[in-house]
């Protein structure tokens, strides 16, 4: 081995190289972005040469310690050389010289190969594999990247199983004894290296479209950040809340709720930790409030999805609650309760002891199984509504128009799905009225020049809500002996309002010179057709004692039905989007003229 003085100078060089690479390089001028990296590279090459020349000399400076000592020295030299190769490899990949980078990293791995399960080498070896993974992904060869990263993952697992002692950090190979790290610090750094492996794997799986696996690795990364306290609370909470939305799209409510509960709990820490300067600016406070509102919005979606999922399960073919289905599901739910949940739960749990308890307490505030009756649905609804208020508190219309309206839309959707569980038609009607009351004023103020999409969505939803209310009033009226004038007036005015908003929506599709498009764009095709169809039906529902007026309404209704039929004749590709509506329209186009004829005949006999 080198003399102590030589060794000290090697260590010094290595330290400056690392400093240049990771600290100084951040300050490099734009015109010479890699200046520090290149200086670091020079130093590293120097160290490598020095280490290499010793090999040639057959390490004569060594104290006579027999074969075993020589082996040990040779091994130390190899490891030190590997550390240099590793730094050189990273240096070259950082400066976009991938081929050279690959050579160095492969060399590093080769040197370590025989010792890769030893305490000295395991961390460095995994880092080399990590970087080879990054390198191959830069070359757009994700499959190869995957191989390297998975082998790093496997090595970690094997090491932890067979050895498990805190391994040396890759920076320690050029350190004097007294500088060496504590076991605790070693462990922390090693776990971080492995967390990175998992994080890179998450990305690799995402690129390979192995979405489920990618999500699982994101979940684990989050979990490990929490365990090894390597996280910023706000950032962590947002990531967990976002992950909850992934689980929502997969209908995994238990996992979704767990992520959200953890997000809320961890976010709570953000306020408690005093910031570095402890003089949080107003902007920081504002940001914090916004993040909180974002998490609230994730909760809203959770409640909404849970309710909508339940509705899907419970509804019959005309969209009403199916009581048989309801009792069947209730029985089934009772049986399954707690059975499978526990096992699944263990796999995804965040945090340890105290933290875990707070998260579980948070979870208890809302169910993660489908609500099956009004009472259960209402509980979920109320939680959702609370979060609506929290979110609206920050996302006020003045400044956050789009966000504010999106939250209102969610609120309206919550009412809509709750109404499904309500059996009393009058009360159900009132729920829809609440939707109208929240959406109508905001729609009136909205400038469609800037918010065309939102504006169309609101037109459509308002139309639909009035339509639904009219249907309910008709159903209520049907139970009466005779329709009273008040109910008739109500039905007619609801129908008029529905028509008004459908027409507004259809008008929004017109060109500047007010011409309705010959061919509808794919994304508005179905809504436009449904609007036409509903208007046709609404004209059919209008109640009037005036025969002439009735005839007029039938005529208009026929024109709308015909529009659907004619359009689909001209655009056969539109048929599948509106099959049911088209079928009914065809039927009506066949029936209405006869009915109108009959009405005309009846009218003429009276005159």
């Amino acid at each position, binding site marked *: 081995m080198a003399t102590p003085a030589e060794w000290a100078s090697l260590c010094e060089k290595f330290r400056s190289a690392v400093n240049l690479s990771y600290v100084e390089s951040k300050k490099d001028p*734009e015109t010479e*972005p890699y200046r520090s990296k290149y200086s670091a590279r020079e130093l590293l090459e120097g160290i490598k040469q020095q280490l290499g020349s010793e090999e040639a000399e057959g390490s004569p400076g060594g104290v006579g310690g027999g074969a075993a000592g020589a082996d040990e020295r040779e091994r130390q030299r190899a490891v030190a050389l590997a550390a240099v190769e590793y730094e050189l490899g990273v240096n070259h990949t950082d400066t976009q010289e991938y081929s050279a980078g690959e050579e160095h990293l492969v060399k590093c791995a080769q040197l370590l190969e025989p010792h890769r399960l030893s305490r000295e080498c395991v961390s460095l070896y995994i880092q080399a594999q990590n970087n080879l993974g990054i390198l191959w*992904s*830069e070359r*757009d060869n994700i499959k190869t*990247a995957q191989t390297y990263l998975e082998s790093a993952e496997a090595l970690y697992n094997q090491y932890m199983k067979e050895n498990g002692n805190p391994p040396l950090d890759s920076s320690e190979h050029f350190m004097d004894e007294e500088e060496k790290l504590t076991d605790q610090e070693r462990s922390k750094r090693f776990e971080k290296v492995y*967390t*990175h492996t998992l*994080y*890179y794997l998450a990305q*690799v799986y*995402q690129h390979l479209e192995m979405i489920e696996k990618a*999500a699982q690795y*994101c979940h684990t*990364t989050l979990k490990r950040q929490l365990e090894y306290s390597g996280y910023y609370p706000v950032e962590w909470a*947002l*990531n967990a*809340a*976002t992950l909850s*939305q*992934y689980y929502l*799209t997969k209908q995994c409510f238990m996992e979704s709720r767990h992520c959200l509960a953890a997000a809320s709990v961890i976010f709570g820490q953000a306020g408690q930790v005093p910031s570095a300067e402890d003089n949080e600016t107003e902007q920081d406070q504002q940001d914090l409030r916004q*993040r909180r509102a*974002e998490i609230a*919005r994730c909760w809203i*979606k959770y409640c*909404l*999805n849970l309710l909508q999922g339940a509705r899907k399960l419970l509804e019959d073919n*005309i*969209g009403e609650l199916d009581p048989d289905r309801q009792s069947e599901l209730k029985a089934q739910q009772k049986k399954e309760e707690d059975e499978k949940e526990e096992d699944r739960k263990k796999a995804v749990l965040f945090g340890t002891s105290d933290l875990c308890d707070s998260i579980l307490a948070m979870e208890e505030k809302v169910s993660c199984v489908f609500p099956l009756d009004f009472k259960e649905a209402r509980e979920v609804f109320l939680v959702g509504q609370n979060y609506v208020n929290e979110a609206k508190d920050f996302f006020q219309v*003045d*400044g*956050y*128009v789009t966000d504010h309206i999106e939250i209102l839309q*969610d609120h309206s959707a919550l009412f809509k799905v709750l109404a499904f569980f309500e059996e009393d038609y009058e009360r159900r009607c009132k729920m829809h009225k609440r939707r109208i009351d929240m959406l109508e004023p*905001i729609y009136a103020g909205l*400038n*469609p020049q*800037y918010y*065309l*999409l939102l504006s*169309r969505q609101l037109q*459509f939803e308002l139309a639909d809500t009035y339509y*639904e209310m009219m249907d309910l009033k008709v159903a209520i009226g049907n139970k009466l002996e005779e329709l009273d004038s008040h109910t008739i007036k109500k039905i007619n005015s609801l129908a008029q309002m529905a028509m008004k908003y459908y027409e*507004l929506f259809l*008008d*929004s*599709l017109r*060109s*500047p010179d*007010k011409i*309705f498009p010959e061919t509808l*764009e794919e994304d*508005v095709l179905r*809504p436009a057709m*449904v609007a036409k169809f*509903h208007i046709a039906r609404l004209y059919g529902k209008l109640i009037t004692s005036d025969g002439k007026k009735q005839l007029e309404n039938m005529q208009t209704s026929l024109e*709308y039905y015909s*529009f659907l039929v004619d359009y689909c004749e001209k655009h056969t590709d539109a048929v599948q989007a509106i099959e049911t*509506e088209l079928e009914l329209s065809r039927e009506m186009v066949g029936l209405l003229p006869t009915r109108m004829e009959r009405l005309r005949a009846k009218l003429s006999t009276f005159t």
Partner: protein
Amino acid sequence: MAPGSKGDTALAASSAEGDAIKVFVRVRPLEEGTVLADNGLCLSVLSSNTIRLNSKPEPKIFTFDHVADVDTTQESVFSSVAKKIVESCMNGYNGTIFAYGQTGSGKTFTMMGPPDSDNFTHNLRGVIPRSFEYLFFLIEREKEKAGAEKSFLCKCSFIEIYNEQLFDLLDSASAGLFLREHITKGVFVVGAVEQVLTSAAEAYKVLTTGWRNRRVASTSMNRESSRSHAVFTITVESMEKTNDVMNIRSSLLNLVDLAGSERQKDTHTEGVRLKEAGNINRSLSCLGQVITALVDVGNGKQRHICYRDSRLTFLLRDSLGGNAKTCIIANINPGSRCFGETLSTLNFAQRAKLIKNKAVINEDTQGNVK
């Protein structure tokens, strides 16, 4: 005409026609003195809308709304790209013109003209000065036609976006501007200076000052101009008085010089969101991006993603799939050295063509038919 068409409901909505983003590719000439090793070009223009990239093993053909070869003049770029947009702006539409491409591909030349010339009278002036001229020409013509009943008000602002922060180029003292939304006015920058314009000459002046601020900033604070986006916005407001009724129409024209699209040198910093990020992001704090990508694959289920759009896409929300006429000029350098970046620019442009005015309606199919 469709049944029930009332025709009197004035909604300033755009038609289906023309909503798709128009993509225009411009090939710049090689730098003077470039040595042409084995022809040195990585592409050839086949016709006025196709381009062939000499990739290996198979050459690739790209089709765009228009492809302008190296000898295309500034005037012809303006008439084929910007003229229509300025015209529709007069009719109350919002319009946006972007220049996209790697540093050195000619974005600034296309949008502004050659560097270091403050007068915009020469033939090499770019899209922005020409748009000013045309806009004010149209305004004057309108005024003559309509007389005293019609008046116009033009205001402009000039914003720079660097590192997800907003700076006002018309007020170099200001920093840290914010984006907000207004229910009738759309997205706006809080506190940005708005200068009233009455002529093209005034507009040049504002542009020059702002541009100078941009460059000053790039040296004094070690900010590279090609890493920032510059957004020049003109608000055109017309007021027409008929029978004591005031009819006000307003529209925005955004002229955008984007940051260089080439791979960010430092992989640890966040790249431009418009472009796909590198394959593996090494910073753990970007975990959210990975998760967001997972959620995006969602299947029409209700979800909320906590990470907001970038400032640029938020500011130009209407231009990217919103209610506006938008055109992208993809600038490319034909040198074979630039092959990789050219390919990625063309790929981006190809994708941009697919962006449409996405007016998705939350239409509920349940319970329609009873």
